[in-house]
């Protein structure tokens, strides 16, 4: 199986061209982040007052901003921040939300307490919660991750809680319990494997919304420090030029939408790959 | 009264259709109960839905064949045309009464609504007709129960309500798709008794679908045994149970525990029913048949009338039969 496992993972994508496109966009973003210094045609920080607000042209494909910095280079550089915040938020949300949700469902007393806390947190809109936290903690990349992650931890906990409650009542879990299985066994053999595919979807969703959240915080000046290029910072800086230099908004804006959208497509395709029923469709046996 | 000819229901693309019901023919006379019996997935529900013109859209469709209700082909009509043409007089009841009833409306209103649709009469009159219908289906305390909600009724009572709703259009044909499968035996007897009584009293024809040979023996006048989308044997009920001619029918009866209590082992039919679309040439039962011969695997068996009103789809029926 190892010889062709790569092609097996690719099959659900090949079967669905739009997911393949999404995968392409994501790969491009990751590559851009990894090789930003080599890919960027100019230094993303270099200021050149002579060419302020040039529209896209042959030398500056995406045009330049109000300081004459190359928009293409800055867009590429920003992929780093996007991926950092996105994965940070996903890791935080899953690492806290999954245990909280699973344990709440398995231990009703703990669940009662935890779910009330989650309810309280969920009463605040995610962005408002993040804003409040940033105001308290002060703006920094780590705090952005924490602030946004907390908002998605609550939704993750709720989802996992609901799913686990349902799984706990499944006959095969009962069968396992009747054979003397303990909590660890139930979680590792029955609950987590059945949570993987909904969590993949949740993760891609969280990643996508983390982008939007981070962009919003940047836009309000509460996100990544303004000197670090990020798509949100780019939007924030250029908003006053929206009529004069729309390209300054279009390119970073497009990247936010494209990565968010691609992530959802890829999440869907991966979920199908993990569903044993689809293995047959994609030609794998056992 | 109802005559189904060569009914074929298919799914899949028009270029490569998969027949889930293949060439089913039967007739149904006034006051007669025809039992359609077969195992899960053999196409009983699809047949009944096709007869009612209720096949889910999109998906299965009637590819070939006709369903004649008093000489008029209902497969060619839209449901509303059938009502207008006076051919709406078919009704159906399903296995799970709870899913067919609106949980937040009183059952009286739900029956009255069916009455209004079919008879165009006003609220009060419809409600009193609803009460009559509940009486007809022998609901205890019909006047009180009009204001009950579905969840306040037992499973058997809910099925009675479903029958009452079905009777609201004064059907000539009632199609019942496993109406007692979800009920206890003690309740099942009552519902079966009720259907028999209604059939006699209202001179209705009933197409009764079930997978339980016992239920068929109790209720039906004639039986059609279905296997893999085909009717493999049709006969009057006494004849079928007394002298089954198809090997599948015989196998089904033999493996019922209640027919051979005391035996150490139950006779079985080896294997499982085929998946639609995988049926190769020859007899559909060839793979599981104990009496299979080489021709069975290549040639589709003939439909033979082994005695009056007793047809069997088999080249070598049990107890002999002249080959055509």
């Amino acid at each position, binding site marked *: 199986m190892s010889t062709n496992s790569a092609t097996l993972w690719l099959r659900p994508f090949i079967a669905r061209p739009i997911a393949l496109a999404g995968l392409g966009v994501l790969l491009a973003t990751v590559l851009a982040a990894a090789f930003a210094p080599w890919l960027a045609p100019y230094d993303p920080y270099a200021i050149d007052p002579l060419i302020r607000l040039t529209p896209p042209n042959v030398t500056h494909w995406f045009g330049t901003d109000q300081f004459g910095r190359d928009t293409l280079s800055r867009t590429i550089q920003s992929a780093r921040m996007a991926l950092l915040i996105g994965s940070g938020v996903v890791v935080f949300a899953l690492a806290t939300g999954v245990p909280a949700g699973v344990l709440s469902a398995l231990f009703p007393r703990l669940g009662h307490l935890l779910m009330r806390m989650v309810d309280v947190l969920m009463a605040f809109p995610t962005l408002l919660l993040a804003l409040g936290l940033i105001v308290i903690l002060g703006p920094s990349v780590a705090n952005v991750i924490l602030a946004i992650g907390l908002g998605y931890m609550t939704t993750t906990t709720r989802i996992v809680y609901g799913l686990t409650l349902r799984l706990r009542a*499944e*006959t*095969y879990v*009962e*069968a*396992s*319990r*009747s*054979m*003397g*299985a303990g909590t660890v066994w139930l979680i590792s*053999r*029955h609950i987590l*494997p*059945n949570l993987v595919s909904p969590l993949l979807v949740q993760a891609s969703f969280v990643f996508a919304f983390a982008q939007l959240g981070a962009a919003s915080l940047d836009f309000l000046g509460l996100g990544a420090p303004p000197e670090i290029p990020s798509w949100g910072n780019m939007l924030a800086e250029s908003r006053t030029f929206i009529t004069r230099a729309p390209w300054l908004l279009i390119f970073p804006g497009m990247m936010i939408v494209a990565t968010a959208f691609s992530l959802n497509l890829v999440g869907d395709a991966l979920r199908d790959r993990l569903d*044993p*029923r689809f293995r*047959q469709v994609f030609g794998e*046996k*056992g | 009264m109802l005559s189904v000819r060569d009914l074929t229901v298919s799914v899949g693309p028009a270029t490569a259709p998969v027949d889930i019901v293949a060439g089913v023919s039967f007739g149904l006379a006034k006051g007669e109960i025809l039992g359609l019996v077969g*195992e*899960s997935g053999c196409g009983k529900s699809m047949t009944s839905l096709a007869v009612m013109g209720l096949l889910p859209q999109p998906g299965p469709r009637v590819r070939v064949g006709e369903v004649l209700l008093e000489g008029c082909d209902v497969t060619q009509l839209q449901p509303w045309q059938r009502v207008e043409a006076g051919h709406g007089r078919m009704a159906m009841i399903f296995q799970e009464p709870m899913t067919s009833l609106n949980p937040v409306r009183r059952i009286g209103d739900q029956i009255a609504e069916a009455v209004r649709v079919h008879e165009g009469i006003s609220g009060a009159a419809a409600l009193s007709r609803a009460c009559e219908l509940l009486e007809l289906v022998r609901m*205890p305390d019909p006047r009180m129960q009009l204001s009950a909600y579905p969840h306040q009724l*037992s*499973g*058997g009572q809910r099925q009675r309500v479903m029958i009452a709703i079905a009777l609201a259009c004064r059907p000539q044909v009632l199609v019942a798709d496993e109406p007692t499968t979800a009920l206890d*035996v*003690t309740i*099942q*007897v*009552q519902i*079966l*008794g009720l259907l*028999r*009584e209604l059939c006699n009293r209202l001179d209705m024809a009933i197409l009764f679908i079930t*997978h*339980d*040979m*016992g*239920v068929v*023996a*109790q*209720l039906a006048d004639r039986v059609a045994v279905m296997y893999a989308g085909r009717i493999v044997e049709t006969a009057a*009920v*006494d004849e079928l*149970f007394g002298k089954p001619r198809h090997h599948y029918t015989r*196998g*089904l*009866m033999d*493996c*019922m*525990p*209640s027919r051979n*209590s005391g*035996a*150490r082992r*139950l006779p*079985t039919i080896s294997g*499982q*029913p085929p998946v639609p679309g995988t049926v190769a040439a020859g007899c559909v039962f060839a793979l599981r048949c104990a009496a299979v011969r080489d021709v069975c695997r290549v040639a589709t068996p003939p439909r033979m009338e082994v005695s009056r009103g007793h047809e069997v789809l088999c080249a070598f029926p049990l107890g002999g039969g002249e080959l055509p």
Partner: protein
Amino acid sequence: MSGDVILDVRDIMVSFSARRAGRKYRVQAVDGASLSLAEGEVLGIVGESGCGKTTLGRTIVGLVRPDSGTIRFNGADMIGAGSSSLREMRLKVRMVFQDPNASLNPRRAIGDSVAEAGDISGFFKTRAERSAAIAATLTAVGLNPAFADRYPYELSGGQRQRVGIARAILPTPSIIIADEPVSALDVSVQAQVLNLMMDLRDQLRLSMLFISHDLGVIGQISSRVAVMYMGRIVEHARTRTVLDQPLHPYTRALVAAIPKPDPSKRILGAIEMGEPPSLFTRPRGCAYAPRCPLASDRCFVEVPNLRSAGTDGRTIACHNV
């Protein structure tokens, strides 16, 4: 009856709290049921839907904690047992579930499901031993050992139920609680699975509690039968005796209502039977009294207890028979 009592269940009470129309009720799902199972014996449990058959089975395998009562396995208390001896007993008393589609984890390979009890208890010493045991067990239930690597969706209902049975016999138990193991299967497949269970009973000398609502099936596989009504056992006797001469009024109705596959013996309309009871409004005396043709005044005030009736250890709970 053969051999000693291996499972002894006494006066089990199980209740659940339920909410209806905004009010909290307690539903007495099992109401003082007692039964005993001898080694190598199959005891059938039959009764209407909701009478507590499944709950009783789940209580015996430890999925439900009874409010009171005792369950003894080979003389040892199962309810108050310490965790290590309990673990051992869990391996000895196993359950087969009704719905073959729901009882297998769709994301686990068949082999892993079959070996689950062994894996939980550390029964297998080596991987090779484990795969050999899986293959042998799959073969024993009439499946190809190659199924070990397949997933449930690739199997038919009958095959899945065979997997459910395979899971219950590895490592070999003493008792199987089978909760309607053939009810979800087609008649022709049902016969195959019943034969398999009878073979296993003989080969492995299993004792079984065979729960079903189908007296025909019970008659085939079990030597004795307990008839349950609203959480109580109302009649308990040899299966043949019950089928041929049911005594308790409820058993009589149940036996009479079996749809016999014989058109010359029609019973439709011949049986008039009241509505099934609601567990929320349990009668004070005999639970069957509101439907019972023999009910007398006493039946409405006094609960009949199981008492011996005739030979063969037949017991019955009725004032008027």
